């Protein structure tokens, strides 16, 4: 915890004063100068912190609050996930020299997604029908789902798709025939 070290640079220095001298107990006083000292902690606390130091910024004390790291980490992850909200997946196209990454959350539905892919890889998606898959193009958009299976893009509702999609692959040519085409 970087901030903690900021508060306690002195703690890592060696002091040779006698116990009880203000220099030596400097470290302890520092540590007791906690966040939020300025307001409601009352007279007693103020007495303890008679030492110097400007009130530290809202720093996080190491190991406080006493919550297991496992629990802290899992709450943090959920927070970051909620906040960043990005749903980046890799997109590969057969024949392309490198892959791309797109954020699925940015699109509102399949049409927008296809437009973005078409722009990115310079191809055209065929016309989708439930019976026949994509007609009219040698490029077929596919995705890998949570089970590891390769599926045709467009069969399931958009929400379900973005939750299930782990990566995208634009299949071309004869391989494309296997998916959804008679």
């Amino acid at each position: 915890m970087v901030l903690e070290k900021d508060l306690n640079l002195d703690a890592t220095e060696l002091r040779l004063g006698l116990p009880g001298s203000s220099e030596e107990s400097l470290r302890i006083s520092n540590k007791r100068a906690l966040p939020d000292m300025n307001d409601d902690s009352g007279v007693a606390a103020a007495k303890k912190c008679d030492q110097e130091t400007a009130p530290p910024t809202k720093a996080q004390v190491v190991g406080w609050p006493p919550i297991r790291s496992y629990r802290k980490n899992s709450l943090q992850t959920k927070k970051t996930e909620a906040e960043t909200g990005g749903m980046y997946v890799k997109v590969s196209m057969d024949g392309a020299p490198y892959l791309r990454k797109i954020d699925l959350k940015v699109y509102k539905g399949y049409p927008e997604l296809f437009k973005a892919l078409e722009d990115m890889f310079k191809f055209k998606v065929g016309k989708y029908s439930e019976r026949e898959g994509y007609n009219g193009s040698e490029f077929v958009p596919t995705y890998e789902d949570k089970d590891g299976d390769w599926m045709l893009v467009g069969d399931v509702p958009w929400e379900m798709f973005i939750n299930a999609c782990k990566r995208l692959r634009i299949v071309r040519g004869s391989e494309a025939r296997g998916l959804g085409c008679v």
Partner: protein
Amino acid sequence: MNYFPDEVVEHVFDFITSHKDRNSVSLVCKSWYKIERYSRQRVFIGNCYSITPQRLIARFPGLKSLTLKGKPHFADFNLVPHDWGGFLDPWIKALAKSRIGLEELRLKRMVVSDDSLELLSKSFPNFKSLVLVSCEGFTTDGVAAIAANCRFLRELDLQENEVEDHRGHWLSCFPESCTSLVSLNFACLKGEINLASLERLVARSPNLKSLRLNRVVPLDTLQKLLMRAPQLVDLGIGSYVDDPSSEVFTKLKAVIQLCNSIRSLSGFLEVAPCCMSAIYPICENLTFLNLSYAPGLQGNDLTKLVQHCRKLQRLWILDCIGDKGLGVVASTCKELQELRVFPSDPFDAGNAAVTEEGLVLISAGCPKLNSLLYFCHQMTNAALITVAKNCTNFIRFRLCILDPVKADPVTNQPLDEGFGAIVRSNKSLKRLSLSGLLTDQVFLYIGMYAKKLEMLSIAFAGDSNKGMLYVLNGCKKLRKLEIRDCPFGDVALLEDMGKYETMRSLWMSSCEVTLGACKTLAKKMPSLNVEIINESEQLEFSLDDRLLVDKMYLYRTLVGHRKDEPEYVLLL
């Protein structure tokens, strides 16, 4: 004096199951010591450095079940550096070489390697049960070895471990012939698993009573699993997200109605609140509900759910339930014995989720309350005094005010009187954690009244050595004392050195203890290991005895210094 043949005495000892009692029995006389040690099957070792595996094996050749704890408790809060110790490896190696027929291993705060797990899985043909709590150092490869090689595995329980997930197929490593599973908990694993393998495993485990899933297991798989295992007693749900109008969800609602043995419910690691109504039918029978990992549920959702849980005995919940929600708990859950309220946002003091009011309501409504862990933003003496009047059965009382030195906001006084009232009226109190603004006075009360206290955690409290001395002198049953950031120093540390032989361990960090005092203690008490943990680069240990130590951990031991300490630990 032994009027009975050994076999009869041994038979009598069979009825004595608690570790404490068996330990006492073994001290009565040589004969009883001998009979006891040959018949002992379960051994609990609270500090893995207090004894060596070799001595354990020599004394208890009939050992079947071993519990080991490694790192000190404050390791949970990142106060103990990585690689401090607590390695499982030497234990497994020694046990594997011996003729011990190990069947059960329970570990807490230990460093467990994949190699250890593999050796474990191959060395004990009757191995049945592995429980790992807050451990680290292993990957799903190690878990796979256990699954693959333990032919009679009944229990695989992974609780809150840091596991590197290789996204391997550990679940598929359970052979088709494995049908003995009673308990499977993999909620802490983060990676994908083979859902089809999971379904088949559950289908061929007729004795399965406890199943806790991780967050990648979706709702439709849950529905299929419950179809296969309606006899479950304990269920941990992974992902609980679906469209309430979907066919899968309708099926789930139907199958849940059949699961009338479920008494314990946890998880909801991913959750859509609109789906919670499907759970209501099983709420009636629940005795344990753990929603502390379900931040997707808001206060209203929690309150609605809790209203159905009349038989609840243990509740773990996030503070977004709010004081009002706790009021609902208080009026609904009359059988409540244990309550844990965790902060949903540990670093944001903005949203005052629960305060002293919630706690007072609980204390008034739940007469059987005996165990509390409560994270809140503020507490008053008046509230604590009221709680102490309402509740006199506390065994565990842990209060954590998020601002560590916060006074009573109404009176601006320290919380000494409040905690004093708690210890005065709860004579059976075994475990206590303090927080808030506290002076030496609270320790006077603790020393005076907390006669059964075994574990005490102190942070940012006290004024002088007197505080620590009150505790050491008054709490005769004290076993574990952990202190951080308090003005306790050499005088307190050295006053009664013999006391530490009656305790398991003492932790002091960021206090006012000098290197010299620690050296003195280590010299006078050879039965203690005194460890100095120092992480700053410039320190050389040969330096001045007047230096304040950053972290000191001492514990009683029968086997002297350990040999596996890292560079930054000095054993005095």
